[in-house]
């Protein structure tokens, strides 16, 4: 119905529509697209009554700045008195007792949360096939995956069942599904948004991210999500720029780098490379300098990422033991079986695989060979990447090596190939850099293609402005 919040705001101002009608529209769309399995829970009644309240506030001229914005939250972001279970059986029946402060700031500006959306279990996966509640289908082609782990988020926006979705990105979980469903996916600098209220997967990588139809909405929402928070000791104290007002098309000449190897390798789908080349030509035609750069460490990014994230995950997920909340095995007879059976029955296979991998790399005999080494490599990759970016305004790559693949294509036998799909998104995550995926065309099967743009630390404002420019034409 509306392709941007700007349109909604105007329509509300002109009284062409009421917030309640917007919510009713989205509820109908949710119903129509039920087969996509994007939603784990729809807050229909609650959203309608909140819409009524906000309509009254609008009439009284007292509505918040995001009145009329309807969003979904990934099943890893806490919303007080709402269920939360990271698409896992192990959190059966769990109800969040507080709201993530980032989401709270949006609620305070009169956002309406219409539902909790599906994802890969504990945000581990790139296809949304690892959910305890079943795969999410891509709305562009329901035989294909929507990407992951924020698959439900991407589909909820792409299928027009809400305007914005809050996802989380550890190694590409916002950018990759955005690319697969033809929308914008934004991962800010690590620590830009408080992680309080975000279920931890890999703490030194995790960030809340935004999935939206356009850059303007992304920028606007970031103004609310970002900023200091007393509950997260690692969150940045830097002031938050008014991103949405800083989106002017860059007038000076920009220096943009692309990694030569990535645009030459057979491993990246031909149409994707072509789409990126077309963009490069467009940037050059507009007077920007676009240069090839070498980044030979690329091949180390993926193993480094999987060693470090699984190590962190193995301890972050230790708390799910059935003692205080969530699923507890009815087959437990003593303390040891309480742990073993609860966790064996409660976690899905991919989560178990990563916990075991992480436990292995942290075990005394292998710690230095894997974990310590991976930490060193991470530092080297980050230092090299910063050197590279020092000489550039932005770095561009495709977001993914392929467009959305078929459901069931990857299984236990070829899981490493699925991990390989993360190759282009993990480097910004390893470095903690801000990165965005924007749609730049379609392949021969009409599947969306994403361009990933990476910027320097805390340069969200210029990154968003560039992304807006790059999406035009």
């Amino acid at each position, binding site marked *: 119905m509306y392709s941007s919040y700007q349109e909604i705001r105007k329509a509300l101002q002109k009284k062409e529509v009421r917030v309640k009608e917007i919510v009713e529209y989205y509820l109908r769309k949710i119903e129509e697209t039920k087969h996509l399995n994007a939603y784990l829970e729809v807050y229909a009644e609650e959203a309608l009554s909140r819409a009524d309240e906000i309509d009254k506030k609008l009439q009284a001229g007292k509505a918040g700045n995001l009145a009329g914005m309807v969003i979904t939250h990934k099943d890893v972001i806490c919303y007080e008195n709402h269920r939360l279970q990271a698409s896992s059986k192990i959190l059966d029946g769990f109800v969040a007792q507080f709201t993530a402060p980032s989401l709270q700031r949006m609620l305070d500006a009169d956002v309406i949360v219409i539902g909790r959306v599906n994802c890969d279990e504990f945000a581990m996966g790139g296809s949304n096939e690892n959910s305890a509640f079943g795969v999410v289908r891509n709305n562009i082609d329901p035989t294909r995956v929507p990407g992951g782990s924020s698959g439900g988020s991407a589909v909820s926006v792409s299928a027009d069942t809400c305007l914005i979705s809050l996802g989380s990105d550890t190694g590409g979980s916002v950018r990759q599904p955005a690319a697969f469903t033809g929308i914008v996916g934004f991962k800010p600098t690590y620590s830009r948004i408080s992680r309080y*209220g975000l279920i931890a997967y890999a703490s030194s990588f995790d960030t809340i991210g935004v999935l939206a139809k356009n850059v303007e909405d992304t920028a606007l929402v970031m103004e609310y999500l970002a900023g200091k928070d007393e509950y997260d000791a690692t969150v940045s104290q830097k002031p938050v720029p008014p991103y949405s007002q800083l989106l002017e098309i860059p007038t000076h000449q920009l220096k943009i780098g692309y990694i030569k190897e990535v645009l030459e390798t057979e491993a990246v789908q031909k149409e994707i490379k072509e789409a990126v080349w077309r963009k490069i030509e467009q940037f050059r035609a507009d007077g920007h300098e676009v240069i090839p750069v070498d980044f030979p460490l690329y091949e180390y990014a993926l193993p480094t990422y999987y060693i470090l994230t699984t190590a962190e995950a193995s301890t972050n997920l230790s*708390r799910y033991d059935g003692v205080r909340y969530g699923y507890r095995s009815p087959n437990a007879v003593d303390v040891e079986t309480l742990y073993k059976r609860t966790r064996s029955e409660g976690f899905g296979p991919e989560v178990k695989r990563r916990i075991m991998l992480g436990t292995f790399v942290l075990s005394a005999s292998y710690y230095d060979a894997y974990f310590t080494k991976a930490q060193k490599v991470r530092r080297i990759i980050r230092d090299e990447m910063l050197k590279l970016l020092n000489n550039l305004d932005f770095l561009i790559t495709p977001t993914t090596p392929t467009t959305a693949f078929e459901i069931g294509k990857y299984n236990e036998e070829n899981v490493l190939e699925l991990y390989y799909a993360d190759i282009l998104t993990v480097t910004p995550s390893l470095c903690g850099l801000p990165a965005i995926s924007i749609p730049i065309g379609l392949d021969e099967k009409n599947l969306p293609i994403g361009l990933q743009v990476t910027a320097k630390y805390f340069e969200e404002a210029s990154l968003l402005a560039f992304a807006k420019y790059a999406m035009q034409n």
Partner: protein
Amino acid sequence: MDKSVIEKYELVVGLEVHAQMLTKSKAFSSEANEYGALPNTNVSVITLAHPGTLPKANRKAVEYAVKMGLACNCSITEYNIYDRKNYFYPDLPKGYQITQDKTPICRGGYIDIKTKSGRRSRIRLNRIHMEEDAGKSLHLEGETETLVDLNRAGVPLIEIVTEPDIRYPEEAYAFLTEIRRLVRYLEICDGNMEEGSLRCDANISVRLKGSKELGRKVEVKNMNSITNVQRAIEREMLRQIEIIEKGGTIASETRMYDAVNNQTYSLRTKEALNDYRYFPEPDLPPIIITEEYLREVRAMMPPLPNELFIKFTSEFGLPEYDAGVLTDKKEIALYFLEICKLTQNYKAASNWVMGPIKSYLNELTMEIKEFPLKPSQIVELIELVEQGKISFAICSQRLFPAFIENPNTTALALAEKMNLIQVSDTSFIKPIIEEVLANWAEKVEAYKKGNKNLLGLFMGEVMKKGKGKVDPKVATKLIQEMLDA
């Protein structure tokens, strides 16, 4: 066991002491840190390890750890990271304990001790690090289920780890006594072993004297008093010697001490080493201890017991016994120090504090901070005695209790009001002596015949009749004069 057998062996003990920090809130969350609350009432979503929660470091706990390190002569680590120690237990909500592995906040250092039998030694510290406490598992008699109370989970701790320098059980006693005194001086822990706010585990081994190699060590836990630590070490030492004497070997294991039967029993063997998968805590930024911060903390430090001990013995010239008693509790030591700012008569000050004041406090189980007399008022008493206006006996037995009841007056005014001021005026004393000598005419004869011991009798009678007011020096002189006349 024969003493000569025991004496073939040398005991080697290292201690791990956990002290709960007296912070208002927990180490990484804001709910109250208090002992004795109803189970599971001080439990926030952070303590309960709800998904999405994060820890936040309590700066007060860091300050306390630094204070202890400075008091123990440790070097303080500049760049501190927290680590996760991973293990599963129902009273450990996150499935890991936040602790410090590779960067303990305090390194090295030592504590000098003196045992009851007078042996002095220096116990080196390996490290002091910060961590959080776990909750409590309660296994109720006859119940199959275990109850968990998470009030204690997340309470800040420091763990003090010694080098294996302890050679005698009584050294462990002296060491723990000194640790308890230090934490109380610093007001960072209440030092209560019975309530578990101070806990001690001992790593115990024995070896033949002269041997360079360490014997296999046994960890002994569950000793809930300082005396029990000494007893447990003694007991465990004998157990190990007995095994070795019989040709056996010591198993590396954890044993619990049973104070009722004075025995240790095996809890678990350590053959399968626990792998805690220590891992740098990504949810907490590093704590940087700057020189400036150290200066600030140093400025906040109270005087320490060994500093005061040296001051009291060398500067004030007090006997070591006095200095030991006076520095046992900080509040007493500081009170004494206040008195000494106002009088040079340090020994008299010490006698007053160790004698009448301590007895009074003990009798009423009162703390010095509740004691009604100010140090300056004790100085008034000291000066009255010093000036011969009143005897120490009368002053401590009569004036002191009255002064406590009426602290708003001066000692002199009160003594006058109570008619306790000694009189040295011969015109007052002479008639009393005359009366006494008249009453004891027979004894006077005996004295004159050479029984000089009777002087004491006359003196006593004169003091009695004079109701304590008679200056004894003047009286003695006068009696002698009058008898010899």
